[in-house]
């Protein structure tokens, strides 16, 4: 069991791939935004890659380990200390009963992950332990961690001193710029040729009005194809309005002139067009970026996006461990 002394900014239990199979009823998958780092942490401590762990956002928590454990920290560097001693990232570490793990602000990247051998053993909801706090489900009491929460841990079989091969780790931007893959569609044909070209060549700045529901972008205005204007009135008056339809996860949803990438806790439907979609294998870049960072979007085929997901899955295995 782990006791929460300080919760951090919005630290929550997540598992991977999250709450799958209920999108048609409005439930997003949730789960870790950087599932690459998350899965590697689990592999380090001998868990299945998707076992439940903690996602720490911007400012990490302080936790007291009531029982001994083997843990691994991956993702953002939050300057973690165990009883005051620095803890390495990307390495499994033994924690004695009673020790306190303190994380601070993210120094590189944005989201840090804590994997614990045995995994977090909260009660699953609709098949997942992932926290979806907007609906108050999953995790501990359906919320981010709070002071005094007690986190149950399953029986584990972890070994300290295992490390992730450097070449298997994600490399975070150090210049506040990220090249992010997108697939065209489903509604790219509502954007004119100049607008498509502009989207793929412009700098898009991440707004601080971004969270696990949506990543809001600031950039040039969009221009539209004729079909965005020549449509029945039930679509709505703006060129970006369309009859309510389902949204893909990762959709770049265009609300008026404001693009918002719909991410792990995003909505499943609505009445705006989605000209492009960020594939799941690129979500780690979103999860590790921060307000003011610049995205440049690079178009890839659906086949390439699927291959990226397979390549990432292959990296999140014992083959990546030293």
């Amino acid at each position: 069991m782990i006791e929460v002394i300080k919760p951090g900014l919005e630290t929550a239990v997540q598992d991977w791939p999250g709450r799958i199979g209920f999108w048609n009823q409005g439930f997003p998958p949730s789960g870790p935004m950087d599932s690459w780092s998350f899965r590697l942490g689990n592999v380090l401590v001998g868990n299945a890659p998707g076992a439940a762990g903690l996602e720490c956002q911007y400012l990490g928590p302080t936790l007291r380990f009531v029982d001994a454990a083997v843990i691994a920290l991956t993702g953002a560097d939050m300057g973690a200390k165990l009883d005051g001693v620095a803890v390495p990232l990307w390495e499994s570490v033994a924690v004695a009963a009673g020790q306190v793990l303190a994380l601070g602000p993210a120094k590189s990247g944005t989201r840090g992950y804590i994997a614990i051998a045995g995994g977090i053993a909260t009660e699953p909801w609709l098949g997942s332990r992932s926290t979806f706090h907007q609906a108050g489900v999953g995790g501990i009491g359906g919320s981010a961690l709070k002071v005094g929460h007690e986190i149950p841990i399953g029986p584990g079989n972890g070994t300290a001193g295992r490390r992730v091969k450097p070449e298997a780790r994600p490399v975070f931007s150090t210049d506040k710029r990220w090249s992010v893959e997108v697939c065209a569609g489903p509604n790219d044909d509502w954007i004119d040729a100049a607008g498509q070209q502009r989207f793929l060549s412009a700098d898009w700045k991440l707004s601080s009005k971004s969270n696990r529901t949506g990543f809001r972008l600031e950039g040039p205005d969009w221009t539209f194809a004729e079909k965005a204007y020549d449509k029945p009135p039930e679509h709505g008056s703006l060129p970006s309005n369309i009859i309510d339809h389902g949204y893909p996860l990762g959709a770049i949803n265009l609300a008026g002139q404001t693009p918002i990438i719909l991410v792990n806790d995003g909505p499943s439907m609505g009445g705006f067009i989605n000209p492009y979609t960020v594939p799941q294998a690129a979500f780690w870049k979103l999860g590790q970026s921060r307000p003011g960072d610049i995205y440049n979007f690079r178009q890839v085929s659906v086949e390439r996006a699927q291959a990226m997901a397979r390549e990432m899955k292959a990296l999140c295995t014992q083959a990546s461990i030293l």
Partner: protein
Amino acid sequence: MATEVRTQTAGNMWKVLVKPGDTVAEGQVLFIMEVMKMEVAHEAPVAGVVSAVHVAEGAEGLDAEDLVVEIG
């Protein structure tokens, strides 16, 4: 020796509530950052007079541990 108040997180500066010369009480909110659509208030750790403010309201792309306010 001035007391430094630094950002607790990366993010944008939503509001700066003090200026040099202001007298502040311990626990008074000095500035509020915005990240994940949440307000992150930063309070004065000590009472005193603000000697410097290094970040303007609306500043974007701040890192954690950036120096914002000095209380002399």
